[in-house]
């Protein structure tokens, strides 16, 4: 595995009268009772995370689970109470204000839930804003801004003001602005939550299209599980300030770490998520007659075939070797089990 872009170790963010002392007093392991008694709130608790280059890591959880706080700790919009955030080898929590400004100017981009556009600037001036504060001259920054505006599909609207655009268009501006400096890491904080469902889907496709072009390292926050499944390479599920499980969508469904994750993943459409390999049984002898299925196919794609047959169907891997077998019962269980 390559060197992680962001590595975060033992990260804490505690709100209350004296967070740092409180954490030290309880040896970095305060219990929920101790939190309650002392009037502190643990927004982020002992989080360990690594973000690989080029991946889309989705942090998901319900409101109040600490997901927005984490992403703000990683960019130091919020000062963490304790822990380490290593960004491309440097410890962000030890960086000076000046160094942080430099890092944000060149290496980070962020998209916000409510767009956070500057209302008094046109689209092009909003997109060029990060370049402007760096001191890039007007012609150059407008040229770059125009490029990105075209990339996000807003060509012709450069001179509009944010309030003259629809929600989806405004978020395109937000996306363009966050990409203007060609960041290494791209933070997206519930970028599509404020949009209505049809637009949200369209924007997700748009996002995937952009990622196919740009291959950014992405940390994506959402509370929407469908969105998570559509976009994520890996998923971190948060509950009460902690990451309760970190893995691929399939791992969460097949091997939930806690009852919370199980309950959370119960209703997701498994047919498109599970691969044959995660459901199949061991290979019983030779390859059976008739068609076989391949181990990385989705269950939904092979269900018709397997259910239509009385006998187990052989599973082969990419090179044609038999690696397991799949029965009608296994498919039915995988598709219709409620996760319990």
């Amino acid at each position, binding site marked *: 595995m390559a060197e992680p872009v962001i590595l975060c170790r033992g990260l804490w963010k505690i709100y209350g009268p004296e967070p740092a002392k409180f954490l030290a007093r309880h040896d970095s392991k305060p219990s929920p009772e101790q939190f309650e008694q002392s009037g502190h709130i643990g927004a982020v608790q002992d989080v360990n995370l690594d973000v690989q280059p080029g991946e889309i890591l989705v942090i998901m959880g319900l409101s109040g689970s600490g997901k927005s706080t984490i992403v703000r700790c990683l960019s130091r919009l919020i000062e963490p109470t304790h822990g380490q955030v290593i960004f491309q080898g440097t410890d962000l929590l030890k960086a000076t204000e000046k160094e942080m*400004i430099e890092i*944000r100017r060149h290496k980070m981009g962020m998209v916000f839930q409510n767009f*956070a556009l500057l209302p008094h600037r046109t689209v092009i001036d909003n997109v060029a804003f990060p370049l402007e*504060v760096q001191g890039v001259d007007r012609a150059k920054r407008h040229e770059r801004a125009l490029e990105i505006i075209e990339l996000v599909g807003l060509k012709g609207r450069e001179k509009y003001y944010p309030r003259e655009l629809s929600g989806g268009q405004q978020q395109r501006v937000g996306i363009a602005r*966050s990409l203007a400096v060609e960041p290494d890491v791209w933070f997206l904080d519930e970028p599509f939550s404020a949009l209505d469902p049809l637009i949200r889907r369209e924007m997700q496709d748009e996002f995937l299209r952009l990622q196919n072009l740009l291959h950014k390292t992405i940390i994506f926050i959402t509370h929407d599980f469908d969105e998570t499944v559509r976009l994520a390479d890996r998923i971190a599920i948060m509950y009460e300030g902690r990451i309760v499980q970190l893995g691929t969508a399939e791992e969460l469904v097949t091997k939930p770490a806690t009852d919370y994750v199980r309950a959370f993943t119960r209703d997701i459409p498994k047919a498109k998520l599970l691969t044959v390999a995660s459901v199949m049984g061991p290979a019983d002898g030779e390859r059976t007659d008739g068609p076989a299925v391949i181990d990385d196919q989705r269950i939904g794609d092979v269900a018709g075939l397997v259910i239509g047959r009385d006998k187990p169907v052989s599973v082969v891997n990419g090179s044609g070797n038999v690696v397991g077998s799949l029965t009608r019962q296994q498919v039915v269980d995988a598709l219709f089990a409620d996760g319990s």
Partner: protein
Amino acid sequence: MTGTAGPALPTAGPRSAWFRLRWPLVAALGVVFLILFRGTLPDWAITPPELWTTNLPLPFLIFGDAFFPALTIKGSSVADWFNGIVIVLREHEIFGLLTFRDVTRGIAGLIVWPLNFSEDLLISGFSDWEIPPIPWVVTSALAGILGWYLRGWGLGLLASSCIAYCAVFGKWELAMTTLSLVLVTAPIAILIGLVLGILALKWRRFERALWPILNLMQSLPHFGYLIPIVVFVGLGHKAGAIATILFALPPMAKITILGLRGVAAEVLEAGVMAGCTRRQMLWRVRIPAARPTLMVGVNQVIMQCLAMVVISAFIGARGLGIDLLFRLQTLQLGRALESGIAIVLMAIALDRLSQALSEKEPVHRQDGPFWSVHPYLTAAGLAAAAGILLAYLVPEAGQLPREMTVTLAPQWDLLIRGVVSALFEPLSFIREYLPPYVLIPIRTFFEQLPWTVFLGAAGLCGWVLGGWRLAALVGAYVGFIVLSGWWTEAMVTTYLVFVAVVICVIFGFPVGVWASRRDRRTRVVAFLCDTFQTFPSFIYLIPVIMLFQVGTISQIMAIVVYASIPVIRYTYVGLRAVPHSMVEAAISSGCTPSQILWKVRMPLAFPEIMLGVNQTIMFGLFMVMIAGFIGGNFDLAREIFKAKAQNDAGLGLLLALCVAFLGLTADRLISAWASRRKAQLGLT
């Protein structure tokens, strides 16, 4: 469900009724107690003894006679302390160079430059370069184009005709003098307010110190500014400008703090993520994003400036105000009305223009030739060119000669006489019955109210509503008035404001309720309130003097006319702001419209209505001082006019502080009650 009607109900009924009436009962008992036992109180507990108020060695104890020789008069009154400070500031050289007064006069001297410039531009022309002033047709046209740009042709027409009125009715010089005072003072007040707000944002400690000062400044009556200014700047036009700037800047500072703090957290985060430095955050993110709020402050500053510019006539500021003051003093009511209309028109135009400015949303520009990209600039240029050409050909378009101006003063006088004689009979019952049966008993009550009782009652209310902190604060306000030596006068002022506020509520509350019942009524009343509120308070003296001549009733009526607006406004706003879901719940429970009003809307709106009463009290205290000019009571207003006549800055400031502390006492108590009640109702 047979015969099991809870036995708890009958007992709960009377108990809760007693419980609900406990405070009125306590108050009633207190009044009875007072009437019966006042005589048993020792004299010192009734009026503050002179021995106390003229014998306060505090400054001597603090400073000794080494540092502030002027303050060493042992056994002096509070006014003497204030004057001691004034003398020190006036006479003592700082570092042996300049006195404080030299500094203030020097600063005030600077304001003459922009004032002269704008007056040259609008009225007299630049004689050094033989450039004539802007022709009045051009001024009028430009005002129109500004209105057109900001909102539409309606506003343009309004702005343009307001300017034209001043020219046609011969008020040009006066009106433009007033306008140029506003145009110079408002930007300076805005700038100072902005700077204070920015500094407060930067340093929490500065904000904590600033906020109470701003509160005090906002409750100081106009004369609290005017009299010290006379000492430190002198009489005249520029003194008026300085007083105006000081008077108008507190709201801007407050709104700046609120606006800059109110910028959405995400927008600030976006700025940080873009890599803004602190300075860039302030200038490129915070301030622009807070623009709509800041513009509300701009509107308020402009209106405050206009109001103060008019009142500054008392210390010699030129313009419409001094004309109005002179006409009122000489009872030329028709002329006064004409000046009054000019002021009112200017108020409406300035208010609507600055409001339109604050509501103006940015719109993108399409590419094209200059005139289509910038139609308003083009129109302004064309209008200016055409007007200047016209003025060159027809001199009357440049400056309307006096003999071509119109005056309707004789007609106004006729009309006023008609109205007054028509209303003389109907209003006579007010003149005949109000003083003996209402005014004198209430005045006697307040005059004879022992200060210990007042202090005790205020302190008790403070303790009940906000604990010992509020009790101590309110006690300090009242205690200051007690020790100031002007207790009786303060009580006469309290009586005047009390009567006026009661009348305001009796009249304004039903109007507010009535207005809240239908959308159309709300719109009409809101429009009237908005319009009347923009008028400088001084204007309201005109109709009052017409109808009631000079005297106590006039003074009270002037307050009533000016101070009714907040009660009306807060009543209908409060009633209409009740959440719709609660009203729907009431409807589906089968409430009649009047049950909805009295059982649902009214209890929920009541805290808001009380805040309206609070505003009415503050407005009343401002107006009672201005109307002291026509009142003739032995109240604080009379004393402040005397102090002004004698240039007694210390006394003037002291009296103004007494008024401010009366207002702050009421304000603190009512606000504490309202916010507690709102919290109980879950409305915060």
